[in-house]
């Protein structure tokens, strides 16, 4: 019980911290504004000059097809790293991404893709990814990717996602949703577990126009 309380304390504090990140100068309402500020101190360059699609190597999707990240080019992509056995944070990330999808105007829907990349090279084989997609009701715009541990680590480095495999096979990881422009440049990093759908929609809208 005590451990649970501590664990919750930690989780909450982490949420609070990631929240703080967005607006270092507005202490009373720490998420109210300041994304422009956050951008200046965000570790991932958001100028789009470091396209994720430069990473070479084949990934496998939920339909057992091989593909390179480069093939995601052409659409604006909403990207997150997760694992399917994850009970708390990842479903929320997926939920947030679905909310973005649902909020997009019909005219823009086909211009946007959604990509989930699994940390769990061992258990998240294509069949498991397929099951997960069905469970979550993820439609045609969604791509779920399985890669080897080295590939996953490389991608995490590029996105600055932190993760660590635990003894029980699960993962500690940071929670971010990334919005990539048509060339794979990271243009927005939505950190933490508070839905920021409005912000995401604005960015996506802007990137589609480009």
């Amino acid at each position, binding site marked *: 019980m005590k451990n649970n309380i501590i664990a919750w304390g930690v989780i909450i504090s982490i949420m609070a911290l990631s929240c703080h990140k967005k607006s270092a100068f507005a202490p009373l309402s720490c998420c109210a504004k300041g994304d422009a500020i956050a951008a200046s101190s965000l570790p991932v360059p958001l100028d789009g*000059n*470091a396209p994720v699609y*430069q990473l070479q190597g084949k990934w496998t999707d939920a339909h057992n097809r091989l593909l390179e990240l480069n093939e995601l080019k052409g659409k604006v992509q909403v990207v997150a790293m997760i694992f399917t056995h994850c009970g708390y944070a990842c479903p929320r990330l997926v939920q947030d991404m679905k909310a973005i999808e649902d909020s997009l105007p019909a005219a823009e829907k086909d211009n946007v893709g959604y990509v989930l990349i699994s940390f769990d090279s061992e258990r998240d084989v294509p069949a498991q990814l397929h099951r997960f997609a069905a469970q979550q009701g993820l439609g045609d715009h969604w791509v779920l990717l399985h890669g080897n541990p080295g590939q996953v680590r490389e991608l995490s480095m590029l996105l600055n996602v*932190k*993760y*660590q495999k635990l*003894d029980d096979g699960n993962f*500690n990881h940071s929670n971010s949703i990334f919005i990539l422009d048509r060339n794979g440049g990271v243009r927005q990093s939505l950190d933490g577990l508070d839905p920021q759908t409005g912000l995401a929609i604005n960015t996506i809208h802007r990137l589609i126009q480009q």
Partner: protein
Amino acid sequence: MRSLFALLLLGFISSPLQDHSGMIKIPAGELRPFLLLAGQNGRIKVHSFYLDIHAVTNDEFLQFVKANPRWKRSGVSRAFADSNYLKQWAGDIEIGDDRIRNSPVTNISWFAANAYCKWKGKRLPTMDEWEYAAGAPPVNAKRGRDLSRIILEWYDHPNPAVLPVVGSTYKNRFGVYDMHGLIWEWVEDFNSVMPGSENRGPGGNPFVCGAGALGTANKEDYAAYMRYAFRESLQAAYTVGGLGFRCAQDIE
């Protein structure tokens, strides 16, 4: 003809897989983690693996760049290395200063280090492997065998203008050189979960850390704080003057 060449090339690439020259086998063992997860018994098992005896040198890295032009200073993508990449070199494939040929290569991003190890048929050591190998006591240190002293003394002096050559500090019980006292080193999973860059708990010093490797004392933990803080302040495309790497390899 072309396919024959390809075959030869393939042979060339795959041969290092069997080649452990310049490496030494680190026996399996246990590591007391610096950051202890509750519920863990305080021991991390480390499997046996091969580790480079010394850090990769400027000369060795030059061979890699020559063979892989996309890793030239002028050609590398900013996604994979920041603008200080290999800045100690005179040119794209020219070291220039002879004194640093056998010094560890620094100003290297994680991506570059990772690519080098892959090219060698190796990989970067994991943080646990590195910490385990680095925890072994010195066997030939000039200034005694106290690991913590070696580390803290290194911290105490500003970086020298010319980095000493590899093998110039001390050899440890596993037979590897310079694990401390020469450079910082990249590890494969440096971006694993960390204490948060806050680096201190609210309200004082809540770090109740597991002692360092091999039953080390309090001071060593202080030295360890530094390594963890350093890793935490890094990103994979960063290059830093005092940061290099060495490679590891699985036991077949």
